């Protein structure tokens, strides 16, 4: 009937998606002209930038070039002491006496200046941490501002948030944040703490201190009273000294489960309040009735967002066997279109791995996966010579007993498994020490609700993934942590009932 059968050849049809031939995108780097970065950054204590008492510093580098960006003060116990003392003084003398609506005004002001300086902050985030500018520009910075806006609104409504119980701030909060979302995590920590009436000592991660220090400038420029927010930079020891400080009333930590366990042990019996947001190994379940192309997109967003440096990443793909071949084949095609490279290029999908240490860790898991018998698939995308890079990777035919299925890799590496029945899929999703997040893909609404309610994880997405909003609580089950951040729950974590105060 029709004439066009001539195109049917002997070779299987293949799409020419990646590769160097044909029409390619030219480099589209974001201009860094207007971003001012200093050679040296101090600690932000009591409203002023100061060197460490012992004068020690560490370097922060650009993971895409391995070049040093700045020397940053390394805080010791003495500096942490000074920061906590400043926070205590500010709490006792100023912040706790301020009318709540005035507190709210300061928090709003921080939010607005964050927006005004968003471009500069996005570029700094990408330079210091390696994440693609598309993400720092469209996700990290707008969400950070949104958190300040959201919690600013609560400042003068705290008494109504938990009716009949009264609500008092906890005092001084010691906060330690990770390197994967540096400014956003600072916002998650600082915004609710300030709105609820606490003062803060925050320690950013040693590989990504710069946006937190720019936030310190913003906080100073916004006229926030000295000592209300203090930022001490350094590595694990500095963090330990913040967490263990006697005069800290509340500890908020986001980071690895390993360190989370140490903190919980250290805090036992201390009477300090704490919230811990730790690791994850989330399952993304794709059922046979899912909209396949959109599910593939969700799988990609789930694991390759921010190089996979995401605690709630969908790092385990569980796909129903009747659609497994189709989903995996489409996933591979989609992965071929992902561009790995210069974080400042607007077309980059996967930027630099945050540090040499993290790249080593990921590469170790790549070896482990192969040794365990999982079948690797890596895309053909070229990567720059200098810097820390990892092409997007699948481990096909992975098993529950494999370490690449059980352990958090924190990189662009997805373990793929299949399941037959709904119950089996749920059982596999839950068979993990973690319980932070998960995803379900099905066109059947009832199934989506039933399955999500049976997965033991704090955040579940249906037919989407990695959606964040300041109004939504975020946190884990099991070894993924304790307590919630975001929303009303996130405010609650910085308050205590009146009678306890």
């Amino acid at each position: 009937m029709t004439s066009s059968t001539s195109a049917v050849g002997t070779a299987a049809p293949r799409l020419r998606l990646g590769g160097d031939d044909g029409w390619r995108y030219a480099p589209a780097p974001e201009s860094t002209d207007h971003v001012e970065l200093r050679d040296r950054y101090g600690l932000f204590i009591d409203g002023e930038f100061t060197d460490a008492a012992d004068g020690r510093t560490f370097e922060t580098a650009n993971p895409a070039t391995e070049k040093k960006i700045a020397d940053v003060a390394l805080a010791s116990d003495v500096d942490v002491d000074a920061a906590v003392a400043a926070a205590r003084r500010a709490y006792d003398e100023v912040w706790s006496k301020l009318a709540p609506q005035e507190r709210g005004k300061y928090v709003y002001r921080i939010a607005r200046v964050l927006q005004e300086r968003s471009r500069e902050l996005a570029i700094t985030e990408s330079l210091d941490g390696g994440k693609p500018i598309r993400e720092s520009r469209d996700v990290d910075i707008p969400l950070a501002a949104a958190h300040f806006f959201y919690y600013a609104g609560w400042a003068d409504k705290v008494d109504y948030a938990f009716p009949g119980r009264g609500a008092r701030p906890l005092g001084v909060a010691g906060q330690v944040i990770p390197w994967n979302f540096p400014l956003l995590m600072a916002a998650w920590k600082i915004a609710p703490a300030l709105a609820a009436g606490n003062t803060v000592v925050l320690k950013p991660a040693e590989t990504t201190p710069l946006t937190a220090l720019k936030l310190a400038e913003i906080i100073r420029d916004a006229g926030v009273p000295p000592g209300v927010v203090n930022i001490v930079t350094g590595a694990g020891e500095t963090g330990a000294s913040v967490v263990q400080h006697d005069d800290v009333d509340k500890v908020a930590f986001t980071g690895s489960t390993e360190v989370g366990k140490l903190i919980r042990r250290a805090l036992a019996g201390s009477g300090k309040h704490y919230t811990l947001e730790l690791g994850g190994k989330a399952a993304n379940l794709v059922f046979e009735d899912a909209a396949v192309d959109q599910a593939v997109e969700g799988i990609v967003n789930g694991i390759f967002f921010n190089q996979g440096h995401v605690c709630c990443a969908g790092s385990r793909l569980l796909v129903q066997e009747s659609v497994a071949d189709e989903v995996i084949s489409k996933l591979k095609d989609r992965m071929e279109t992902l561009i790995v490279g210069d974080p400042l290029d607007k077309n980059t999908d996967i930027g630099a791995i945050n540090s040499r240490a993290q790249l080593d860790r990921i590469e170790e898991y790549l070896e482990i996966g192969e040794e365990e018998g999982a079948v690797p698939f890596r895309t053909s995308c070229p990567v720059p010579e200098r810097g820390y890079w990892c092409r997007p990777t699948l481990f096909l035919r992975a098993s529950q007993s494999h370490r690449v299925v059980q352990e958090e890799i924190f990189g662009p590496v997805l373990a793929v498994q299949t399941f037959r029945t709904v119950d089996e899929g749920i059982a596999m999703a839950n068979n993990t020490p973690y319980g932070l997040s998960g995803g379900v893909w099905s066109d059947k609404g009832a199934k989506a609700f039933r399955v999500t309610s049976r997965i033991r994880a704090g955040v579940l997405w249906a037919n989407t993934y990695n959606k964040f909003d300041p109004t939504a609580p975020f946190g884990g089950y099991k070894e993924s942590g304790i307590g919630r951040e975001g929303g009303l729950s996130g405010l609650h974590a910085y308050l205590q009932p009146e009678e306890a105060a």
Partner: protein
Amino acid sequence: MEPHPRTAHGALRGASFESPSIDAVGVEERVARLCSRSIKKEAKLQALHLTLSMIDLTTLEGADSEGKVRQLCAKALQLHAALPDLPHVAAVCVYPALVGVAKRALEGSGIHVASVATSFPAGQAPLEIKLLEVKRAVEAGADEVDMVISRGRFLAGDYACTADEIASVKEACGDAHLKVILETGELGALDAIRRASDLAMRSGADFIKTSTGKIKPAATMPVVLVMLEAIRDHYLRTGRRIGMKPAGGIGAAKDAIRHLVMVRETLGQDWLDPDLYRFGASSLANDVLRQIVKQRSGIYQSFDDFSM
């Protein structure tokens, strides 16, 4: 409408014809991400040239005259006198009554003559009349025929009728290429658009095309993405490459480049070719020309510097 003589596609009736489901929210997110691609410098210039070579320069008005069609053909032959090294457009698209005029004007140029047919744009005519119109257009020299599907029958779930009609038109086309217009603005949902795309490709379409240009919305990015994914799946299943033609609503060079990005990342390099991708547009060419002049000279020129 009387029953169709051929019943080879009876199996396509009702729910027995399955297309994958589409999640509209997910499609919009994918489109937004594709739109975030930043196309600069030589990549942009390349895309602009490619766009010109993919244009079906179109006039489909009741008031179309022989003079207007000749003028359009002259434009097709020489887009911008100041830039003689440009590629020529892919085709000129007119009503059947003006195919002969276009054919004579474009003789030997390599530019195709496309004709709408099948009672364009509504398609509300008996099948014999549609087929006769197609035959007359082809006899007059049309290299390509742009048909419209019977949206009423399709929306009523009568897929067999729709399939048979497309197959009959394909037969009437002879050697002429068949573009099947789905008129996506009348189909309502992306699921229906995917289903109509699958149906058209299985029934003999060489190209699938979004719209007549007479109905809004026309070639929106989500609609085109869903059609591209249908083409991709059809190719992977059968090895047969079907072309795509968004039409209506693409007036700016910037939009055209976004479409090319979408094609590149959905179907790959093979489809970045006038044989497999076309833009149905009346005003796009001049905006593209203006952008090319800007890329080369650094200065935007007035629209009056470009011929109608």
